[in-house]
């Protein structure tokens, strides 16, 4: 370092110290008491760019898949006395189940195949442009007495009929309601 460089160096150092005293307001602040702020993880930040250069973007080396595996293994170890033996046995057992599919008749007996749930035609929405189809959730439901009473009073108020005609009226209303759902289905 020649004289000129040294002078520059000193000037910069002085400027830096001055700014440090003018704005003494960061996390470490160059003070001995606050040394515990300089955790190793803050130093690692400086290596991130280099490791990206060496090993590719972050998604190639990040921790998420490993954490996922840990999350799978953790509930497998049930024994407190011999957790590692227990874990090994469990993993081994699971692997055996994985291999079972190469023995078809045994596999069929252990895991009998279930047919997929079939939906009624009006509950399925499909479109020629798409491969998949939507199945509407449905469930049979019987009204209890108080609900029937409430519905009756609602319809007698809205349709302005009373007494005997009411049941017919409810039927037509329900049909109308059902139709509107159908149109929603098919012209979605």
């Amino acid at each position, binding site marked *: 370092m020649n004289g000129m460089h040294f002078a*520059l*160096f000193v000037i*910069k*150092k002085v*400027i*830096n110290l001055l700014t*440090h005293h003018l*704005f003494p*307001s*960061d*996390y*470490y*602040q*160059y003070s001995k*008491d*606050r040394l*515990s*702020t*300089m*955790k190793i*993880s*803050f130093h*690692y*930040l*400086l290596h*991130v*760019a*280099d490791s*990206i*250069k060496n090993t590719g*973007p*972050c*998604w190639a080396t*990040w*921790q*998420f898949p490993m*954490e996922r595996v840990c999350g799978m293994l953790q509930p497998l170890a049930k024994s407190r006395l011999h957790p590692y033996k227990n874990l090994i046995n469990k993993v081994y057992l699971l692997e055996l189940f994985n291999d079972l599919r190469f023995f078809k008749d045994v596999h069929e007996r252990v895991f009998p195949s279930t047919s997929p749930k079939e939906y009624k035609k009006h509950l399925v929405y499909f479109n020629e442009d798409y491969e998949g189809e939507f199945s509407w959730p449905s469930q049979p439901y019987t009204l209890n007495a108080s609900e029937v009473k409430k519905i009756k009073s609602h319809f007698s108020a809205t349709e302005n009929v009373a007494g005997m005609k009411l049941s017919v009226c409810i039927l037509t209303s329900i049909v109308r309601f059902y139709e509107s759902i159908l149109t929603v289905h098919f012209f979605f």
Partner: protein
Amino acid sequence: MHLFYENIAPYMVKFWMGAFFKDSALNSEPYVLDNKQWSEIGQEMEAVKKSIPTDFGRPPRNILLHHNGYKAVEWASWIMLYSLPLLKGRLPEHYLRGWSYFVKAVCLCQKRKLSAQDQDDIKNFLLEFYNHYERYAFCIICHQKSH
């Protein structure tokens, strides 16, 4: 990414909550937000829960109450989406700027493809954040680089 989400972000939140040092005298710095401000931030996060689009991932949890149980994904969205707007006007401008370098670097690291420019940006932003954190002689480093 463990470094960003599970180390740096919780440390910084601890700083701002005034809980980093055991010695409470060291914690009284201008970057510390008081409890009232933090509970306001937490309430704002709770309030936005219902209206946050699912595309943004999990809805935010109150950071004051749940920051110990935060998952990596929640830290990620805290860094990239919520921290800057929520801390703006609460944290002094100077610290917010320092933190924003880190936010920019993390956002770049999330990208699927990184150009050479992106890599340089990541390096520079992290260095800026580090310098802000440490307040080390940035001039000297620049000086050495120029050789």
